[in-house]
Each structure stands twice: as C-alpha cells, then as structure tokens.
C-alpha cells in the first residue's frame, strides 16, 4: 500500500466529487460534509462511471405509502441502470452482501507533512500551506 495525494482539500467541496487516476485505476473521491471517501469509479454491476451518477438520499419504508427519506447526498446512483450505492460503505442497496464498490482508505494530510514523504505525489503539486486528500492503494 502506498499513499497517493489526489487533490487539495479545497478542490472537493462538501457535496462535491473528483475523479482521479491512481496507478491506472479510476477512483472517485466524494466529500460528504467534510468527510472524504474514495471509491472505485467502476460500478460493480456493468461498469458505469460512478462519478457521473446522481447523489441522492436514502428512501426506506416500513409500510406501503410511507417514504422515510434520510441521508440526503450520501447515496450515489450509477448513471447506468440507477443502482444505489452507499458512499460510506460502498455497499449496494439491492444486494449489499454480494455487491459493493471497492473502497480505499482516505485521509487528509497537511502539506507540510507531505513534502517530507514517503507519500507519492506523482504529478500533483503539493505546497506546505494547504491540506490534501490522500488515498491509500
């Protein structure tokens, strides 16, 4: 596992997302109210590009006619076929045990630390003043 700097924190605002390429793998980084999550961009069903999906809430129901709506903006629907995935866990709603998106450890690091290494910044410019999103892969 190596840590890869993929974005400056300011670049991905709350509710925002960024598609990055880490070692040839497309990874989408979401910011949910200040928390970052890094997921494979490829839908495990048929390969849709998740970063093009719509962020929605979670609708549940304990009885017909009831729409219990929560967690707005924390579910990504694949742009193809509309399957829902929980950004916090990567799990699909329709088949959570068997079908989930690969999740990568992600952290926020200060630029001052990053310039010392051993992080892989690749082509991403890092300055000591800013904070950065770091994905482990």
């Amino acid at each position, binding site marked *: 596992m190596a840590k890869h700097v993929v974005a400056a924190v300011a670049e991905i605002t709350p509710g925002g997302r960024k598609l990055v390429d880490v070692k040839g793998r497309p990874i989408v980084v979401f910011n949910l109210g200040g928390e970052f999550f890094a997921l*494979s961009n*490829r*839908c*495990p*069903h*048929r*390969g*849709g*590009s998740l970063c*093009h*999906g*719509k962020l929605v809430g979670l609708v549940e129901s304990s009885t017909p006619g009831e729409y219990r709506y929560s967690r707005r903006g924390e579910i990504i*629907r694949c*742009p*193809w*076929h*509309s399957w829902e995935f929980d950004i916090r866990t990567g799990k699909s709603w329709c088949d959570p045990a*068997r*079908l*989930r*998106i*690969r999740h990568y450890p992600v952290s926020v690091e200060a630029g001052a630390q990053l310039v010392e290494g051993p992080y892989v910044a690749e082509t991403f410019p890092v300055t000591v003043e800013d904070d950065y999103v770091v994905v482990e892969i």
Partner: protein
Amino acid sequence: MNIEARQPSRSSRTKPAIVDVDIHAKSSVEDLRPFLSNRWGDYLQTYGQRSRHGYAKGFPYPKGQPLASRRDSWPPDGGLPASNLDFMRHQHLDQYGITIGIMNPLSPTGQGDQNVEFGAAMCFAANEFQIEHWNRLEPRLRASVCVPYEDGELSRTEIRRRAGDQRFAHVLFMSRTSELLGKRRYWPIFEAAVEAGLPVGVHVFGYSGWAMTNSGWPSFYIEEMTEHSTSCQAMVTSLIMEGVFERWPELKIVLIEAGFAWLPALGWRLDNAWKKLKNEVPHLKKAPSEYIRQHFWVSTQPMEEPDDPEHVIDVMNWIGMDHILFASDYPHWDFDDPFLALPPKLTAEQRGMIYSGNAQALYGFA
C-alpha cells in the same frame, strides 16, 4: 469481498465488429420544422403532439431519470442526450467500435399521434432528419422508416418513398399500437415492408390508448416497464393467429428492447392451446412456436440477468442463437455495455453472431 467487474482491456484486444440495432439519435421538435409544410408546422406549433395519453408534455409514468437517459450522456456543451454527433461518436460509436448502428427515433416522430395526417407529416420529417442530420454525416448510422402506423395507406406511402434506399434499415413501429398488430388495418404496412425488402422493427413504448394491463391501469413506472413484455406477448400472439405470416412468408419482425426471456414460454403456451383450438385458426399451417422461430428476431437489451447466468443461455438457445441481435439502447438509462452485457459463457462464435453476424444476415449489411 469485492466482485468488481473486470474491465476489458480495450486497447490490447481487437474490437469485435458490432452492429447495434438500437440507438436513439435524438431530434427536437425544432429540428423537424424544416421538413414540415407550413400547414403542419403551424399545427405543431399551435396544438402540439397528442399521443393517446393525457399529458401535453412529459410522460404518464414519470421516468426514473430525465428523459430516461444515462446521466453521463448529456453532451458537455448542452443539448439533449444523443443529439450531438461528435459526443455520440466519442461516447459510443468509437468507444465500442460500433460498425453499424440503427437509429430508432422515439419522439418526436408523430407515431401513434391521434391525428394520423399530422403523424404522417411528422414521420416524413423524422425520416428526412435521420438522413440529413445523422446518416449524411455518419454513414455508420442507419435510419428507420418511421411510419404513421395507425393508418395503413399513409404508412405504405412512406415506405414506398424509402424503398430501395439502403440508408434505411427497417420499418419502425412502437409496440403499443391502438389495435393488436395482426389486425387488418396494419396489413398494408407489412405488405409494403415485404415489397421493399425491409424487416419490421417493433420498439417498445408508445401508447395504445388502452389500459397498460388487461386488468386496468397500474400505478408505477416500474409496472410500465414490466408491462412492455406483456404487451409484446399479445402482439406476437396476434401476428401469428391472424395468419400474417401465411400471407407474407418473407415478413421478418425484430422485437427491440422487449426483453426476450418470455418468448419461448409464450411459444409453448400457444402450441399447447393451439393443439386444442386448431379449428378456430385453420389458416395456421404449423405450430405457433414455428412461426416464432422463423419470423421473429430479438434484441439483447435490456439483457436478462437471472441469478444463474446459464439460464439465460438456455433461453437464447430456445429462441435460436441466430435470431438474437445486439442492442445497447444508447443513450438510455438501462443501456447495455457492448463488452459487458452478454453472458460470459457464450462461445466466441455465438458472440460473433449476436454482435454482428445475425444482423448482417437479417439486414443485408455488407
């Protein structure tokens, strides 16, 4: 556990030839205006399209997403999904190496409009637009002959106008016609299609004006979606029972976006009933399932996805591997990725047939 789909390495592999029989190249109402007479242009402007449902705009069962389209299919510089040729090339035609794509315009085309004269003018315009805006610039894209199918003679006129024009691949119906497709009112269309040597494509959707189930109107869009296969079952039954294929033995029907797992079971059911009720339909010369085997082709999308993928291969074998055509349904939400949609256990030969061989044989594509 993670069962992430493997990404085929598109660069290192030779792209198979792919004929995609279902692409929804889009036009707007404004796009069609240049091809309408003043009379019908003014009519369109004033009264608009009136399908056999109540809404002036939009759909009786709201879709799952805007225009039922992939969220990544909206062109970056604006415009509707599949309205921009460059973006369609980039996202679909070149991306997958589509060698030929058949355009099936859904709307606006005037098909199924309550006013058939207007419908005929709109179909003419939609056909001109496919050629002028799409095929002329991108010859891989072939056109459908949109016909105002609720009027047999007006439809025949449009088919004759396009007969012999290799840029048109088939005659196009929507599946929800106001009467069952085997009925006499549609016979001039079959006759003209056969005369022109064109298969007849039936794409799901449209509005028959009747309730969407034979027990009344359902509540939900998910029901509208599942009801496509039930209406197609009735449509196939009608074509057979009315003796359409005895009258036009060369007639070929392509079922587009209808799913296909229901087709063998329908054939078995019809055969069993026919054995007891033969004397009602003495014009049938063979078992209903034989007409299905001979006269119907199916397209793959939306791909059937049973838990056990072997089951879908059973069904494909029952239908006949030589009658299955690849379709992506680009740019719609339930799009099938050409490289990932087919069951993995198909042989290379079967894949080749479904990707292109069957379509080439059916449509006579070089």
